[in-house]
Structures are given as structure tokens and as C-alpha cells.
């Protein structure tokens, strides 16, 4: 293919935004306030949408716009709203003491980033848009994963899961020209929405029955 004249700007933009996503992820990893976390997630998703938009623009692939729009609607507006509503319902603002404390968390995330780069290195040639996007995507997945078991509050775990999701989407965009086929995108999108709703329902029920959202209290089933 013959890249459009400004092809070099696109990649740079993408790389930049991806890097910012990673930064947000790290912030998310260390700070305990739940509302802030939701906000951070929203911004992260926004950058994701941005990347999609850039891809769509520079590779003039119209259907990726759809992806961008969906992301904005879903992940930037709807989900944060939903989560905030939950939070307000539950009336707890702060995360309890995590498994690893902040410095340790940072260390681990650093290690994971390294791993992400290691994994992604062979494929730098393949990705057309920005060099490190894939690495960042994988890192997002790994750190999100780490976040999941580092935090105890059900809601934070959901957030973490969503960041993993973001990582996957980023990878999709980074790796595959023009993203995945539209039908797949739709499927994925709605699945995520449903998933979050169901998670919401569960969290609600859990709070009703356990009068708490601390998942470390969910340890009756052993052996």
C-alpha cells in the first residue's frame, strides 16, 4: 500500500496516546480512590477511541470510525456512568489495603511492562501504526490482570477487567490493519456491556447479602 503523505504523524500520534494510556494504567494501579479510578478509566478509553479515530482517518477506513464512536459512547460515557451510580449506591469511596503496596506495585508493573515489550518485540515489523503500540497493549493486559488480584474491592476488580479489555482492543487496532471485521467489533462491544451490567447486578446482590464489597470475604467455598 502507499501510505498517505502525513503517514508519519499518524504513528507518532498513536504512539503518544498509547503511551498515555499506559501512564493512566499505572496511575490506576497505585491510587486508591474509587471515583478517581473510574474517571481515569474513562480517560483511558477516550484515548483508545482517539487512536481508533486516528487509524480511521489516516488509513481512511470508514468503519473504524464506528469503532471509535462505539468506544466513546460505551466506554467513555455509559460504563463510567454506570459504575459511578453503583459507587454512589454503595457509598464507599476508598479501596482497602491492596496486596502489594504502592512502591511494590510500581515495581511489578515495571517488570510487566518489560515482559510486554519482550513479547511484542518480534512483531514490531508487523505493526504498521506506531512502534510500541502492541507492546503497550500487552502491557495493559498484563498490568490490568495484575491489578485484578492486587485489589480487593469487587468494583476495582471490574475496573481492572475493563482495562484488560482496553488493552485487547488496543492490540486489535495496533496489530490488524483497520481493526477486526465490524461484526466482531459489535459482538465484542455488546458482550462487554452485558458483562458489566451483569457484574453490576452481582455486585449489588453481593452487597445486599454480605453488606460488603470486599471480595476477600468471599472465601466460604474451599477444598
Amino acid at each position: 500500500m502507499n501510505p498517505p503523505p502525513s503517514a508519519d504523524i499518524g504513528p507518532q500520534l498513536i504512539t503518544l496516546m498509547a503511551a498515555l494510556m499506559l501512564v493512566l494504567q499505572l496511575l490506576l494501579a497505585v491510587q486508591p480512590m474509587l471515583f478517581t479510578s473510574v474517571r481515569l478509566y474513562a480517560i483511558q478509553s477516550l484515548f483508545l477511541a482517539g487512536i481508533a479515530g486516528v487509524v480511521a482517518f489516516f488509513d481512511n477506513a470508514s468503519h473504524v470510525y464506528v469503532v471509535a464512536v462505539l468506544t466513546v459512547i460505551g466506554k467513555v460515557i455509559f460504563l463510567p456512568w454506570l459504575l459511578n451510580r453503583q459507587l454512589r449506591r454503595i457509598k464507599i469511596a476508598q479501596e482497602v489495603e491492596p496486596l502489594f503496596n504502592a512502591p511494590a506495585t510500581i515495581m511489578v508493573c515495571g517488570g510487566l511492562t518489560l515482559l510486554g515489550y519482550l513479547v511484542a518485540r518480534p512483531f514490531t515489523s508487523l505493526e504498521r501504526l506506531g512502534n510500541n503500540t502492541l507492546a503497550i497493549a500487552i502491557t495493559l493486559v498484563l498490568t490490568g490482570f495484575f491489578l485484578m488480584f492486587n485489589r480487593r474491592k469487587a468494583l476495582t476488580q471490574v475496573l481492572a477487567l475493563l482495562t484488560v479489555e482496553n488493552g485487547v482492543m488496543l492490540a486489535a487496532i495496533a496489530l490488524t490493519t483497520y481493526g477486526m471485521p465490524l461484526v466482531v467489533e459489535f459482538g465484542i462491544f455488546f458482550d462487554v456491556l452485558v458483562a458489566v451490567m451483569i457484574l453490576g447486578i452481582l455486585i449489588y446482590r453481593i452487597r445486599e447479602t454480605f453488606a460488603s464489597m470486599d471480595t476477600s470475604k468471599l472465601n466460604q467455598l474451599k477444598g
Partner: protein
Amino acid sequence: MNIQPFPLLEISLCGYVIGAVGALVFMRREKLANVFSFGVASLSALAGLLAALDFLSAGPGAAVPKIDLLPSSIPYLQFTVRLDPLGAFFLLIVSLLGLAISIYSLGYARGFYGRKNVGVLGAFFNLLLLATTAVFLADNAFFFLIAWEIMALTAYCLVSFEHEKVETRNAGVLFFIMSHIGTGCLILGFLLLFQGTGKMLGDYSPQAYSFESFHALGEKMSAAFQNHTDPDLLLRRDIAFLLFLVGFGVKAGIVPLHIWLPAAHPVAPSNVSAFMSGVLIKTGIYGLTRVLFDFLGTPPNWWGVTVLSIGTISAVLGVLYALMEHDLKRLLAYHSIENIGIILMGLGASLMFLHSGHPVLASLALIAGLYHTINHAVFKALLFLGAGAVLHATHTRNMEEMGGLAKRMRWTALFFLVGAVAISALPPLNGFVSEWLTYQSLLQGFGTTTSLVRIMFPISGAMLALTGALAAACFVKAFGITFLAQPRSEHAAHAHEASFTMLLGQGILTAACVFLGLFPAFLLKWLDPVTQQLSGQQISAQLSAANGLILSNTAAQGGTVSMLGLALLALALLAAPLVLWLLFATRAKTRRGPTWDCGLRGLTPQMEYTATGFSKPIRMIFKALFRPRREVQREYDFSPYFTTTLRFESHVEEVFQTRIYRPLNRLVLGVSRRLRALQAGSIQAYLIYIFITLVLLLLFAL
């Protein structure tokens, strides 16, 4: 008798199926279920008996019939049934016992009316007979394993038939677990052979699982063994041998794999214990014979030595533990271990002869083993049936609560006595014949080689003598304490004779004992095809002189014996006491009086000698093995000389139980409990597991 075996065989197999189904159909009407299931069972057994006799009496070289029972859709599997001499011989055993036991059960099962469901009992009994018959006839290893497992399953259900008792349940589970571990070894063993045949035939077809190809493989292996080629194949053969030894050994109950046997036999209904002890454990012998003589080719020497030593050890330990029992059925169960040992002595010696190239001797030893197999089947079943009748009458298995039954259960006592004499290897009954053959083969074995191992023969011969003597002691105790002297409990005092069918069942087996003892020539003739198949010899002619009246050693002037002759002579010599009586004692009167009681006021049962007391000297002699423990608690009022109550307990340790199996069990459970901590219940932990896996895999992929 000129009828083709196969119609008969099919009749009997179908008969068992019908019996099982019918029993379930009539489940609600117990009388009908009882009569139908066991009636049909006995008829089918009769058909099987005729088939086997027909085939064996046809002599060597009779055509080996073979059919497929069902079509099969599984690769490698074929439901092929084949009646070859070895199979036919064991078919003879299972059918004979099946007949007797089914008839016995007609009466025995009445004891369950109203308590338990006789229909279920009958159904499982028929299934067990069917499966066992299938085991002896299967011609495809896959099919064999299926029959084998079904046999184990039905046996398990029958053992735990009276599952209300915890003891019974545990025994059943122990039996099934042991048996399944054995089956595992068998599967591996067959798979090794299967690999060999597959290589040999070039493709892994059902053919690769058929017994013919195993036999062919065996010849290949013997060739390799003689020319010292293909070490890999030979190694695999040795491994297979060990696997089969363990696998079939568990079922046969060889020491130290025997622990399930004394647990399971006592708790099962007596007709079932009779069948298990008579036939079920013989399937192990069948398997060993089949594999060692038919599949694996010329054995190396250490196989024979191993089998012989295991046999010797099992025989001695079995009878020693039997002596320590005063639970009648447990005692009999331990004797099964002993007799399995004796059988294995024959087989082991035969293997060693095959190795050193003495086919005639090998056949002699093999015949000794197989003869003892059928003998043990007959008299052990007889004894268990007798024990069942006693149990039926006294509602206890504890010999210390019996006594005086000889007056109350005349026929049962007579039959049990015959069984006891037979199992103690005393002339003129069948037990002596097979042990005589065993002795002969062992004695001649000494000359077959110059290597040091030949010392094994006389030593195990001596051990065999020890076993025999101890067995005699044990059965003096068993019969004496159970049937003689005064009743030791209310139950025993009010015991009643067993019903007619129960007596008939025992009678058949008693007749078999006498027949096999007095006329060995018939069985030897029927064994010709078997030896022809397995060691290429027919030696019944050499073994029986004076048209079958005299049993003679194969060697010239090697020693002869004639049970019939001795019996007749003994009868003739009864003249001597008669004459003396006529001479002196015509005027002597006989009166009954009390036993000498040292001037006390009459003897009470408490003063009789007990089973425990009877075996005390032996317990003391072998205390290194038994490690007897005794606890004496005496309570007294003011001085130890006036004891008010005295409690005495003495225990004997079952070495293998306490030293091997319990620790092993504890270990396994401990490890599992530790592992349980993995599933700690915290989602964080679970996530971490996945995370670590992911990271590791990613690194692995780089």
C-alpha cells in the same frame, strides 16, 4: 456323549442372562425369584459342565470352536469367545461349582426372605457366573478385561450385599480398590503385549489383541530369548511378567497382596464366599497360567524362582494366619491364601522345568498345580458351604460360641469333616493326590539342574510339609471346636440341620472330593489336552498305571500310590478289630457316662478347650511373626487373690496390614490434605495461579 460343545455353551451363557433378568423381573416375589434365578443358574451351570466335559474328553487336538458374540464398534475390541483346553478346564471348575452352589443357594437364600431382596442376590449371582465364564472363554484381551471388570463389579455388589454393616462396606471397598489396582497392572501388561503384536503384525488391528497373536508373539519372544537377540523385547517381556504377576496375584490373593481376601470373604453371603474362594480367586490362577505358559514364551529362570518362592511364602503365611483365627469364615479365607500358594508352587516349578528344558516334568508340575486348583475349588467351596450352614443355624461366625454341632447337624458335620480331611491333604481324598504330585515334581526337580537354585525344590517341599501339618492342626481345631464337645452358646445348643437343597449342594462337592481322590486317572486324562497345549506333552499314560487305579510317578520306579487300593485295604483290615472283638469283647458292655471332671460338679462349656487356647502353642512358637499382645484387667474387692472379674484380651498383628498398607494409606491422605490448601477459597489466589501460568507460558514461547 457326542454333543458339540458350542450349543451347550451358548445355552449356558444365555441361561445366566435369563436367570439374571428373570430374577430382577420377579424381584417383588421373593420365593419365585429365588427358585427361578438359582434354578436357571444351576441348569446353565450343568450345560456348561457338559460342554467342558465333552470338549475335554474329546482329547487333544479337538477342534477349537470360536465365535463372535456381539458385533463391536470400538477399534481393537471383538467379543470373540473361544473354547480351548485351558479355558475348558476352568470352565469345568466354574460350572461344577456353579451347579453345586446354585443348588445350595436355593435353600440358603430362604434365610434372606423378608430381610433382603433375594431377586437382586440371584441376579448378581447369575451375572457373576456369566462374567467368570466369559473370563475363561474370552479370546480378545480387550474383551477379557471387560469380562474381568464386570466380574469384579458384580463380586463387589455381592460382597456388600449385606451393606447395613460398616464392616461389610469397608471390606467391599477394599476388595474393589485392590482388584482395580490389579486390573490396572493387567491393562498395562496386555498393552505391552499389544504393542509387541502390533509391531509384529505391522498394524494395530483387533487381531493385535487376540490371544492367537499373543501366542505367536510368545514364540517370537522365546526365539529371541534363545538366540539372545532383541533385548528390548525381552525387557518388555520381563516387565509384562511382573505386571501380570501383580495383577493376577491380587485377584489370586498371593502374599502380600492378599489383604482384601480375609476381609471380603467372611462378610459376603456364604454361597458367594464359596464361589469367590472356589472360582473367583482361581481366575487369577487362570490368568497366570494363560499368560506364563501361553503368551510369554520360554521363561527365564528367575520367573519360576519368583513364582515358586511367592507360592511357598503364601502357603506358609496363609496357614499360620489361619491358625490364629477363630472366625470360621476368616479362617477359611486365610486357607485360600495357603492353597493358592500350593498351586503356585506347582506352576513355579513347572516354569523352572520349562526353562531347563524338561517338558515332561514341566507337565507334571503343571498338572500338579491345576489338579490342586480344581481340588481347592471343590473342597474350599464345600467348607464354605458348610460354614454357611453353620452360620445359618447358629447366627454367628465365632467358633468360640459353637460346639456340639456334630450331634445336631449330622450331615453338615460329615460333609465338613470330609472337606477338612481333604484340605489337610490326608489320604485317601483329593487334597493328598495333588500334593503328592507336587511333592513328586519338586523331588525330581532337584536333579534337573546343577545350579544352586535347585535347593529351592526340597526346601519348598519341606515348607509344603509344614503347611500340610499346620493345615491339619488348623482343621482339627476348626472341626473340633465347631462340631465336637458341648455347645458353647444358646444358639449352638438350638442349632438345626440345614435344609435339603443346602445338603444336596454340599453332597455334590463331597462326592467330587471323594471321586477326585479315588479316581485321579479321569482328571489326568482330561488334563492331557491342556498340557498338550501348554507344554506340548501328554503324560496321563505315564502317570497312571494298572489302568488308572494306581498313580505313578513319571520316572521309572519313581514311586506309586493308589488311594483306591489303600481305601479298600483299610476296609479289608477292619476285619482285624472285628476278629478281636469276637475273640474277647463279645461280653463287654458299653454305657454312656459323664466326662471325667476331676470330681467337680459336672463339666460346663466354660471348661472346654477354646480355639484360642488350641492354637496357643503355635502362637508362642511363631511369636516373632505374630507379635501377640495380651491385656489382662482384673478387678478385686480387698485382695488380688479374690478376683471378682477378669478381662483377658489377646491380639495378633497382621504384619502387612500394620507395616505396609496403613502407613501407605496415611501418606496418601496426608498429601491430599496438603494439596487441598491450593483451593483456599480466595479469588486473588486463583487469579494469581492463572497469572503465573500466563507469564510462564509467555516466557516459554519467547
